[in-house]
């Protein structure tokens, strides 16, 4: 469990902001959408169900009214037969029968016949049948018994095949309406039963045309659940179909929901007045809108469409928010890798723009600070080298002064004066009012003075020439860069006492650069040895003119002018050495302008 949470935690850490925003917004939107859809669907379902309930109830009530009218007509006929025919004491049985015929024929849509029985079940008047079937016993019929038991009421039987009379042509289904009557015959009043057989077909036709909304149907049953009329009545009688009428017989008036044969359905029950019959409207599941085949595809496709639209929109919004942050992140990565000269665009939201500006400012500060540090470092190093370079070797000074003393004592005053004069110039140029750069002309003069001192001191016979390409005299150069090379040439390159040895200093231009070649035709050295002289990783050999001066010059040139400048040594054994100084050929004015622009930056 802990491992899983760790993995999830690690995965969560690597999830992109855009994904997080998308997931959060889309989940919330989808949840909202689903809740809304579910709410609307439920509400729609409830409204649909309510409408179906109301429609069904309205329809059932209308049918109930029609049925009520139909039954009232039957009751009215029965009452007419009783009060206007049966109660008429003056009428004979035959006259009653004739009136029965007239009234029944006039109302043949509701009645198929009428019979008056005496209290022993004998026919007194009857139409259209006149004779009971052999062994028929009307007193055992339900309608007879009920009328006898409750003489104050009219009784409606459930449908049955009338099979009481001998002269019936067919087996006709009827609903019998019976009531107890008082018969006055020959001055005597006795109890009897008036039977009216209703036209069952007209009652069925009244209900057969009724169709409820959404494929529902209506059926009629008596209070005990015996079917009176049903669209599939004969199929139910035959056992091919089934109906839940016995359960419905127990329902009170109103709307009920039941599950029947694996289907939920709505049942609307309405009791028909007087008879106790129940009119039942049934609407199946498909009619209630619970499984609306129209609504479901629409809802699903709309939900899919809106979900995809939301996904696209949220994805775009997330990208809009996160793209500037991602660009900023890439910029920060570049800064991490040392790239400081990049442009960070301030875009996106207010916070991101502020962050971009802050990072830009930070980068600028960092860049400036690093530049400052680098410059300071460079200046310090150059200063150190300058100091080192500007220090006149005490041995050289001692030896020179010793030579001056020696020459003075020897009366070689002119040479002494010359030497002292050269030494003085040497020092003046060395100082150069504290400037690090001096014109080439003065640097060359410094070299001449040095060579002059050395020549006097060693009484050397070596020759030396110093030349400069015209136009280069005024070019500024870092001071005291030639003298260390000359010192090396004197100590290691040539034998100063040899007449044939020659040292040449030549300054000239090459493209944009000023080159100063210091060459000698002395012993020379192997190129690998020459290469080690400038290699800073190699330790210095503390000896007189051991090349420290050359390396010092090389570093000073590079510090002052950059990596592309410095010292190059060309040497072959017994062929001499050429030390080339490469400097930028910049005028003093240019230098000043450049310096000014650096300061402004």
């Amino acid at each position, binding site marked *: 469990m802990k491992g899983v949470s760790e993995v999830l935690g690690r995965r969560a850490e690597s999830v992109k902001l855009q994904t997080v925003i998308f997931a959060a917004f889309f989940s919330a939107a989808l949840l909202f959408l689903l809740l809304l859809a579910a709410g609307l669907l439920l509400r729609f379902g409830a409204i649909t169900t309510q409408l179906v309930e109301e429609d069904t109830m309205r329809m059932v009530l209308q049918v109930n009214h029609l049925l009520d009218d139909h039954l009232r007509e039957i009751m009215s006929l029965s009452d007419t037969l009783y009060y206007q025919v049966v109660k008429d004491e003056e009428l004979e049985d035959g006259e009653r029968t004739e009136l029965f015929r007239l009234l029944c024929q006039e109302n043949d849509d509701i009645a198929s016949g009428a019979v008056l029985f005496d209290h022993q079940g004998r026919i007194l008047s009857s139409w259209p049948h006149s004779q009971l*079937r*052999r062994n028929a016993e009307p007193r055992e019929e339900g309608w007879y018994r009920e009328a006898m038991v409750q003489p104050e009421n009219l009784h409606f039987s459930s*449908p*049955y*095949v009338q*099979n009481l009379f001998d002269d019936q042509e*067919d*087996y006709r*289904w009827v609903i019998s309406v019976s009531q107890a009557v008082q018969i006055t015959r020959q001055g005597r009043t006795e109890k009897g039963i008036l039977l009216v057989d209703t036209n*069952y*077909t007209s009652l*069925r036709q009244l209900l*057969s045309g009724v169709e409820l909304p959404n494929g529902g149907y209506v059926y009629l049953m008596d209070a005990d659940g015996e079917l009176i009329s049903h669209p599939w*009545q*004969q*199929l139910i*009688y*035959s*056992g*091919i179909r089934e109906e839940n009428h016995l359960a419905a017989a127990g329902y009170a008036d109103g709307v009920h929901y039941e599950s029947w044969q694996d289907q939920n359905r709505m049942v609307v029950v309405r009791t028909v007045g007087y008879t106790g019959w129940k009119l039942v409207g049934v609407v199946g599941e498909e009619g209630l809108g619970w499984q609306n*085949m*129209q609504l479901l*595809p*629409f809802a*699903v*496709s*709309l939900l*899919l*469409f809106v979900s*995809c*639209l939301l996904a*696209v929109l949220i994805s775009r919004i997330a990208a809009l928010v996160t793209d500037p942050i991602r660009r900023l992140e890439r910029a920060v990565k570049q800064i991490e890798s040392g790239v400081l000269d990049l442009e960070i665009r301030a875009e996106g939201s207010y916070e991101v723009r502020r962050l971009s500006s802050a990072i830009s400012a930070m980068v600028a500060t960092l860049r400036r600070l690093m530049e400052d540090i680098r410059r300071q470092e460079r200046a310090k190093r150059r200063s150190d080298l300058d100091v080192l370079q500007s220090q006149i070797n005490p041995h050289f000074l001692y030896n020179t002064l010793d030579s001056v003393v020696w020459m003075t004592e020897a009366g070689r005053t002119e040479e002494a004066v010359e030497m002292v004069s050269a030494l003085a110039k040497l020092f003046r140029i060395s100082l150069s009012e504290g400037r690090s750069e001096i014109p080439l002309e003065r640097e060359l003069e410094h070299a001449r003075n040095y060579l002059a001192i050395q020549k006097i001191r060693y009484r050397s016979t070596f020759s030396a020439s110093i030349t400069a390409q015209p136009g280069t005299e005024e070019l500024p150069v870092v001071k005291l860069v030639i003298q260390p090379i000359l010192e090396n040439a004197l100590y290691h390159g040539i034998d100063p006492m040899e007449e044939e040895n020659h040292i040449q200093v030549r300054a000239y231009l090459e493209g944009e650069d000023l080159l100063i070649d210091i060459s000698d035709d002395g012993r020379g050295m192997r190129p690998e040895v020459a290469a080690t002289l400038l290699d800073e990783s190699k330790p210095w050999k503390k000896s007189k003119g051991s090349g420290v001066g050359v390396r010092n010059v090389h570093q000073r040139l590079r510090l002052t002018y950059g990596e592309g400048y410095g010292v190059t040594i060309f040497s072959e054994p017994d062929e001499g050495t050429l030390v080339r100084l490469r400097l930028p050929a910049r005028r003093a004015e240019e230098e000043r302008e450049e310096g000014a622009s650096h300061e402004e930056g």
Partner: protein
Amino acid sequence: MKKGKKGLFQSILLVLLGLLVLLSMVPFQPREPETLEISVLFLQRDSGLWDNIRLGMEQAAADQGAELRFLSVSYDGEETDGAQLLLREAADGTDAVIIAPAIEQELEPILEEASANCPILTFSQGMDHTLLDFSPGGEEVSRMLINMALEDGREGTFLLLSESGTGLDDQRVIFAESYLRQQGIEPVRLSVRQNESRRLARTLETMDPDCVICPEAGLTYALCQHWMKEQESAPDYRFYGMGVTEPAARCLESGVIRGLVGWSDYASGYLICESAALAARGKEIEWEGELPLYAIGKEELDERSYQKLFFPVLP
């Protein structure tokens, strides 16, 4: 490039889903199944026998969206034109054919040929090349009739009546003969033609049996119709027949005959027509099993449950 492809995909998806939404808004009307034509072949003389079956068939046709064509087959005393009619109907492209029991046996040789074009349905069990068998077997009918007769008395001559030319009833009579023998009674057999009911009634009187058992509905119907028409010729022997028709019920009610064995003709008509429509649409026929048989005496006729079965409520 990747973003462009993604955007294009999203746009196409949205357009497709939008079209789906529009499509789902188009009102959906389930297609009404095509009206079927179902031909019913029956013997002209049996039309009265077919009243309740016809009611059931008409109800099933209305429920299944079918039109019924009742084709009466004429009978000249020797043979019918049923074979010709059946082949013609099958060739003319009727969707299904229902064959009345009285001509099943005669048409059996051509059922294979006719059923190549459309489903053929018969009422009786054991017919080859038909799709539906739901009538009770002949043995059951015979057994019930004999049991009713034996309950009323075992004495005297028992005559088994069958119609010549109908193999089905022959089967019933053969079983009845065997069953009576098992009961220790040696029956007499009489095979007659149905269109001679008056002569048959006289023949029966001449033969003077004590009990007549007729396991064939057409013959029972014809005799009962004769007796109802000419009431003075009512038999003085016990008669037990097959099929609850109006003349038979009248005879039973009036005591002319003693008992009937029958099923719900309405239900049989409904089931066979419903099955024909399902078969024509290539659907599975759902009904399995047999319709129940009932033995009905005079007393049962007044019972509401029997009335519901044998006297259909008109739609």
